[in-house]
C-alpha cells in the first residue's frame, strides 16, 4: 500500500472539504493510505463531515506535519496541497523542498489562475476558478487521477 498526504489550506472556501473527502474516497478505493494535515478548523470540518472516519482516518496538526517532513522523520508517496491563496503557494513550495512525494497542487478560488501561474517547479496542477461549487474541480481531478473502476 502506498500513502498520500493532503495538506489543507484555509478552510474559508467550502470547496476544500468536499474535494478532500472526494479525493480521499478515490484514493482509499485504490488502497492508498491518506493522512490529512491542516489547521484545527480545517480538520474539524473534515471530522464533522466524516464522523466515522469512512474517508479520512489519520489527521495531523499542520505545524507537526511540516516539522516531521523537514526532519525527515516521515514522507509520503503522494502529496496534494490545497491552494487558494498566497500562503497556499508558500506551503506548496515548502513541500516541494522538504518532501520527495509526487506533488499535486489543487488550486481553486477566485485567484486560481494567477496562483497557478506562480507555480514554476515540478508539480501536477489541478486548477479551477471556483469557490463554492466543487463539481468543476472534481471533474479536473477525475481527468488527472486514474481511478480504479
Amino acid at each position, binding site marked *: 500500500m502506498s500513502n498520500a498526504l493532503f495538506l489543507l489550506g*484555509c478552510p474559508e472556501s467550502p470547496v476544500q472539504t468536499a474535494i478532500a473527502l472526494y479525493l480521499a474516497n478515490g484514493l482509499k478505493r485504490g488502497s492508498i493510505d491518506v493522512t490529512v494535515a491542516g*489547521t484545527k478548523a480545517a480538520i474539524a470540518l473534515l471530522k464533522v463531515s466524516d464522523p466515522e472516519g469512512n474517508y479520512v482516518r489519520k489527521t495531523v496538526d499542520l*505545524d507537526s506535519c511540516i516539522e516531521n517532513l523537514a526532519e525527515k522523520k516521515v514522507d509520503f508517496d503522494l502529496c496534494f496541497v490545497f491552494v487558494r491563496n*498566497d500562503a497556499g503557494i508558500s506551503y506548496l513550495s*515548502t513541500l516541494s523542498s522538504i518532501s520527495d512525494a509526487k506533488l499535486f497542487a489543487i488550486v481553486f478560488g477566485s485567484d486560481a489562475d494567477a496562483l497557478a501561474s506562480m507555480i514554476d517547479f515540478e508539480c501536477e496542477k489541478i486548477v479551477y476558478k471556483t469557490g463554492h461549487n466543487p463539481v468543476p474541480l472534481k471533474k479536473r481531478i477525475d481527468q488527472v487521477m486514474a481511478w480504479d473502476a
Partner: protein
Amino acid sequence: MGCIEQMKYEVLLKNTSFKECREYVENNFKEVYQVKPGYKMFDVYLIGVPPISIGVDGDDVIFPYTKPCYGTFLLRIRAEEEIESLRKGEVL
C-alpha cells in the same frame, strides 16, 4: 503551535505575500541571508518560496512567518543564536 507567537516580536508587514516580504528584506537590510523552506528558526520551520530571505539588523532577525488563513507576516525578533547560525553559513 510555534513558540514565536509567545515571543516579543514586531510585525513589519502583515497579511502580505512571500514575494513582498522577500523584496522588503532585500531592499531594507544590508545583511541578508537566503535559506531553503524548512529552515529551522527558533522552534519552527520556515514556510515559503525559495529562496527565503532573512535580514539581520543589530541583534534582530527579520523573517517571513506564514499562516494558512492570514498570509505571510514579516517579523522582527531579537535572536542572537539564530544570527550566529546564519553567519556560520548554516543556510542554503
